[in-house]
């Protein structure tokens, strides 16, 4: 079922990672995402993975949950690995069969890139798993507040994100329901050529659209009833404070960045 997707889900808790200032967490994780593309050799990647492992430990989340976040991208990882193995021809030849050639270089490259993708996804799921969506948008709003100078309404962007996050599960559930209802009227969603399949989506997309408009109208009323009038004069229940531990995390991230760049400069690249 669609509603079983775990990406973007928040798991409440009181771990160090949960309690990290969300602005700091955003900066750290975004830096990390950039960082994971920096290393050209195993030592650099190892540093990145060690950093990630620290993050996983700090999150105190069950490993099973973290592995589950990888399920949707398993296919991509596999494809890239296979392509790497088949196309890269360097190092010792391990197996040759016609034009197919598997080499140590190919395997090493495949593993390297697969690890990079996995590290990327696990890192970003750590962010969404340990930060409530509202806190996340709140942090973005505050981090982006300098943009107000160039007349960007940061509050509205953040509000839209909050609402989108709130309604994604509701609309997924709704999609499930509409699909069942149309199937009960004989809608065939599984067979036919591309055009027929696209056409078969109309009975699902239109009710979904209509329902989204209805929900939007209701929500707008509800928000007005609760005195919503944009970002001016609005206070926030959650106050954000950068603590000493947050400064440590920032410094550690900076140190990691420096270390990775150093690795690249001093060691030969492992990638072909």
């Amino acid at each position: 079922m669609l509603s079983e997707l775990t990406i973007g889900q928040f798991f409440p808790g009181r771990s160090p990672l949960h309690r990290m200032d969300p602005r700091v967490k955003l900066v750290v994780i975004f830096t990390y995402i950039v960082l994971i593309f920096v290393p050209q050799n195993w030592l650099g990647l190892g540093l990145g993975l060690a950093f990630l492992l620290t993050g996983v430990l700090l999150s105190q989340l069950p490993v099973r949950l973290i592995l589950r976040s990888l399920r949707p991208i398993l296919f991509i990882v596999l494809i890239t690995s296979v392509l790497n193995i088949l196309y890269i021809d360097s190092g010792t030849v391990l197996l040759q069969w016609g034009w197919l050639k598997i080499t140590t270089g190919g395997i090493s490259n495949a593993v390297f890139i697969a690890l990079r993708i996995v590290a990327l996804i696990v890192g970003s799921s750590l962010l969404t798993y340990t930060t409530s969506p509202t806190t996340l948008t709140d942090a973005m709003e505050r981090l982006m507040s300098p943009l107000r100078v160039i007349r960007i309404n940061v509050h509205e962007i953040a509000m839209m994100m909050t609402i989108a996050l709130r309604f994604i599960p509701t609309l997924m559930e709704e999609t499930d329901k509409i699909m069942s209802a149309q199937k009960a009227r004989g809608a065939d969603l599984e067979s036919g050529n591309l055009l027929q399949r696209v056409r078969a989506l109309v009975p699902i997309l239109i009710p979904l659209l209509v329902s989204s408009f209805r929900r939007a109208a209701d929500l707008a009323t509800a928000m007005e009833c609760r005195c919503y009038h944009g970002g001016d004069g609005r206070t926030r229940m959650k106050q954000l404070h950068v603590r000493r531990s947050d400064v440590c995390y920032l410094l550690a991230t900076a140190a990691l960045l420096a270390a990775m760049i150093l690795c690249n400069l001093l060691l030969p690249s492992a990638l072909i």
Partner: protein
Amino acid sequence: MELLKAQHVSFQYENPEEQPLPVLSDVSLTIRRGEFVAILGHNGSGKSTLAKHFNAMLLPTGGAVWVEEWQTTDEAHVFDVRRTVGMVLQNPDNQLVSTIVQEDVAFGPENLGVEPSEIAVRVNEALRLVDMLPYRDHAAHKLSGGQKQRVAIAGALAMHPDCLVLDEPTAMLDPKGRREVMDTIRRLNRENGMTVVLITHYMEEAALADRVVVMEEGRIVQEGTPREVFSQVEPLRAVQLDVPQPTELCYELRRQGVSLPADVLTVEEAVEALAAVWEGAV
């Protein structure tokens, strides 16, 4: 003391092509502090339109609506009006703004610019009043319908309103959810003195109020205690509303010549009344 006052309110939607359709015509109603008033009527009777006049979501095209000392047309006080009259709507899924329960409850006070430390206090207090404190950190979309509606009530309570207007809050709930929401509303009224205006088409719910107002075609057609209103079986049937079964049973038996009181409302009262006639008969 008067809290809400509708004086000769009429309302019609602007409709340039056709004749404007009156939705409310000459409605006058006063809600006193601490009262529990049910507005009963079928779909299209104008009951929800009236409710939206009490927090300035709609403005009357004729007459006036007052909330405390503010007239709802006074734009300078529109937030005072909306803070004073907390509104809960029908669809539990479409009125929660935030993913996490406590963040949603905080939405109202945040808009009002309440101090952060005070918001946290209000959120806890509001969630405690609706019995949802243990769900503070839960995801809103995973709650049951009844729980979502209670969170919506808490969201209104966190603005420290003087009055709650609930627009068919149980129409989309299962019996368990309906019971939860009705228990919460009654408790807020009895124990916390909250003024409640409940819009409904369920007569069982209206029967719990201090006063019932019956609406039909944009007018108030009946008003009184539940006992007074529901003992009038014929007028209710005329506007296609249900009568409580115990009342209906006694009414039908009376029509067959059995001498029973006209104002039987509950199962217990019906049992007492029937037993009395029965034992008298033996």
